[in-house]
């Protein structure tokens, strides 16, 4: 299906972007997925800071959650987790 794109009258002037990048899901780039073992996580949050996507969220509970809508599967988090709490699994 091809989406009908808006015409020149219907887009903002000056090249102002009108959609948030969140509407573009990059999760389908992934070949391997990082999977979190909550038991091992000690909430250092390094994975959150190292994630290029901002796909590892810190919840109000203090737990970590991976947003697979955006995770591209670079596996930096798996490589960096000091506790080995993240594991890679083929999609």
């Amino acid at each position, binding site marked *: 299906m091809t989406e009908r794109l808006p015409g020149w009258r219907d887009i903002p002037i000056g090249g102002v972007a009108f959609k*948030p990048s969140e509407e573009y899901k990059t999760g389908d780039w992934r070949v391997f997925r990082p999977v979190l073992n909550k038991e091992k996580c000690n909430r250092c*949050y390094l994975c959150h800071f*190292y994630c290029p996507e901002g796909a590892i969220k810190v919840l109000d509970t203090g737990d970590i959650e991976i947003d697979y809508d955006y995770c591209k599967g670079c596996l*930096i988090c798996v490589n960096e987790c000091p506790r080995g709490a993240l594991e890679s699994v083929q999609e």
Partner: protein
Amino acid sequence: MSGEKLSLKDLARKRDLLAPGHRLCAGCGAAIVARLVMKATRGPTIVACATGCLEVATTIFPYTAWRVPWIHSAFENVASTASGIEAGLKALKRAGKLKYDHVDVIAFGGDGATYDIGFQAISGAFERGHDILYVLYDNEAYMNTGIQRSGGTPKYASTTTSPAGKVIPGKLELKKPISHIMVAHRIPYVATASPAYPLDLMRKVRRGLEVEGPAFIHILAPCPRGWRFDPRYTIEMARLAVQTCVFPLWEAENGKYKLTGVSRSIARNPKMKKPVEEYLKRQGRFRHLFTPENRHLVDEIQKIVDEEWNWLLKMCQLS
């Protein structure tokens, strides 16, 4: 030093200002750098970005990943665009037309935008003393156009315009000492940082925003595609660069050099310093150095790194 104390626990809960859904490569160091820089902002902020991977992949029309006001104008002019933003804000404030007490202005430029084509604009902006924070995300080549050499590409790295060939072993020239050149501009704050050490990085960004006048932060941004390593090792590369003293961490406030973080520990305990080989051998762009004929080039790089490190140690003691 002033301002609030930053902690990873708090910052982890701060909403990202660079949103997901951008299209930088998986494992892109520049993405980590930009996220961390934006996490360290302190209030109303406007961002200007030079042409390059970061700009292109975060704002593919109609999408944008930026949750702050953001402008891209050209490749070589991010410092002058930011100068205009800063001057405009100043004038609006003076005329009572600004609804904010202060707005921070951050300019992002890649190594091409900074060492090469935009160098003059940065030098001009710093000489004029605009209150802006310039962030150099250094992936050590023109990545957006396909890994061509820049003034920030290290010696003997293979790029598409300094390819390792049968007679020429990659780029023959040294990496330009860009941050020291910025210190020589006598601006209030210059620092280097690595995404492997997020707290050090964010603390420096915050300091750069706090000082009045220009600040320059040089952040290493390993590029899996251009440096040729598996994306999972981006942070490892960023860490090894510091541990080998290829990319030491320091800051210079009002010209006074000071080592920070791991680099400070290495200065105290030189045994911690790793051989450059550990860094080089992990990257495809240096692969050609690990043949019997080219081994001596690794030694040469070690010598250069040692010399520069010793010079830096002296600068830190002197000031």
